């Protein structure tokens, strides 16, 4: 059913720390690795060794430059399904293949009933859904529903593959609906936020902003430039000798 549950028992989701993400793409590849061998058909790639390779991936990491000049910084930005509370991707689905689970809030696509009309991907503002050109159905992050409840796996592996793979601990998994959970505390402490809150989709996943830069970061840059300036004006006899040698050799 594409009608949304009035309330979900849990709000399972991810908390992504933009301060510690280094953009290594480990979460991207581990996501692809797990889900291409998961419960459904493989996540296909098109023309993988040709001139225009592309394929279905459920997690992408962008890199943005934020701010100007000396104050600018690079922010690596992982982007996957946010498992929204009010997602239009579910309600627009004509077949009921897209649904939101009442028990944990995970948004899923049933690959056996999806007709591949792609309307859900049009309804998602976050670009979370990717069409599988080979299988002809829509794919999306499952929050590794086949890992998190899987008793065949050791307990430490019962978390989404992307969270397990992250080498810097920038991804956290848990119940964001429970105010006492570790992820909720983290969100409260670090002032986690929603993406595009004005869209009204009420995303479950939260993002933690980069921490403010320490004072003196800019000063370090000034020291560097001073050093380089000083080396241009010869000081000691040795410096002058090298400057003379440089001049002669540069002729």
């Amino acid at each position, binding site marked *: 059913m594409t009608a949304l549950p009035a309330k979900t028992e849990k709000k399972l989701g991810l908390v992504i720390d933009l301060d510690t993400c280094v953009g290594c793409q480990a979460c991207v590849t581990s996501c692809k690795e797990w889900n291409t061998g998961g419960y459904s058909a493989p996540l296909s790639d098109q023309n993988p060794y040709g001139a225009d390779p592309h394929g279905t*991936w459920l997690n992408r990491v962008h890199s943005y430059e934020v701010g100007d000049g000396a104050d600018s910084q690079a922010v690596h930005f992982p982007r996957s399904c946010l498992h929204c509370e009010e997602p239009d991707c579910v*309600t627009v689905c004509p077949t009921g293949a897209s649904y939101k689970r009442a028990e944990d809030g995970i948004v899923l696509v049933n690959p056996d009933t999806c007709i591949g009309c792609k309307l859900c991907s049009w309804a998602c503002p976050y670009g979370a859904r*990717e069409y599988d050109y080979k299988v*002809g159905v829509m794919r999306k992050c499952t929050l590794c529903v086949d890992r998190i409840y899987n008793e065949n796996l050791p307990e430490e592996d019962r978390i989404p593959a992307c969270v397990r793979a992250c080498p810097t601990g920038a991804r956290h998994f848990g119940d964001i609906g429970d105010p006492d959970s570790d992820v909720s505390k983290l969100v409260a402490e670090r002032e986690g936020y929603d993406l595009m809150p004005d869209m009204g989709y009420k995303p479950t996943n939260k993002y933690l902003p980069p921490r403010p830069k320490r004072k003196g970061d800019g000063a370090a840059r000034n020291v560097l430039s001073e050093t380089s300036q000083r080396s241009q004006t010869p000081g000691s006899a040795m410096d002058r000798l090298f400057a003379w040698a440089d001049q002669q050799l540069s002729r």
Partner: protein
Amino acid sequence: MHPAYSVIFFTTASGAGYGMLTLLALGILFGWFPRDMTFGLVTFGLALGLITAGLISSSAHLGRPERAWRAFSQWRTSWLSREGVMAVATYVPSGLLALSWIFAEEAGQTANGQEKFLSVFAIAGALVTLYCTGMIYASLRTIRHWNLGIVPINYVVFGLMTGAVLFSFILHLFGLRSDGYSWITAVLLATGLALKVIYWMNVDAAKPISTAEDATGLGHLGKVRQFEVAHTQKNFVMREMGYEIARKHVLRLRNLTYILAFGLPLAGTLLTILGGTVLSIFGTFFALVTIAIGIFVERWLFFAEAEHVVNVYYGAEAA
């Protein structure tokens, strides 16, 4: 948005089919033309044929067309499902009306009570289906070019307008010249033109839904620019939602739409009303040819011009 030919053909062909069906059923309801088997076969055949060809074409857009029947189930929330349900439901009154009108023994032009009843339902079904098609697009909050109240109205009027031009041509082929019908056609074309002008005024006035700063939540740190793309080649999201068309082409294509989809068909229709028999037939034919090209350009542009908000993650400053 990527303009898929299957969807362009579906919306334009089915639109004209439902428009023609509406005018045909109106004529039967009010007895505007005599009952004639050949005329009935051609007109109902054309209207229902266009609708069916469009619907088949739309399934070409699907990844798994063999599962298309599943799309009738979620009419409670999905406009696409509602459209599918209404499209199939409309076949019932229109099919029965066609059978009755074409094969009935009784001579004379007036419809019997049963046919009038079916006509009303065929008209209602056609108009509601067109409205549902428009709402598939208008209900998407992610695309400011589509998320407008005028969009479903345009789908209804453009369907009626193209159907009227086609029907007018068929009437003339059968020597059933009717200035009343031509006037209806002219009024629909003029209304369509006005609606398209208002639509583009709305589009140009619509503020972007989001910015790169808002979408990443990093605006408090400064301007957000794409530094490194997330993948080397375009992915599905960029192929489907990242379709871009240069601003100068948009303005040219808008003018072309005004001329081909509205201006020239209107001129042809006025020629039909004012001219003698030969000029009149030429006028309907001219209107038909120009609107066929014009409505294709209009629909292509409807998709190509539409910007999806997701592009703010892919380097667009705002969308």
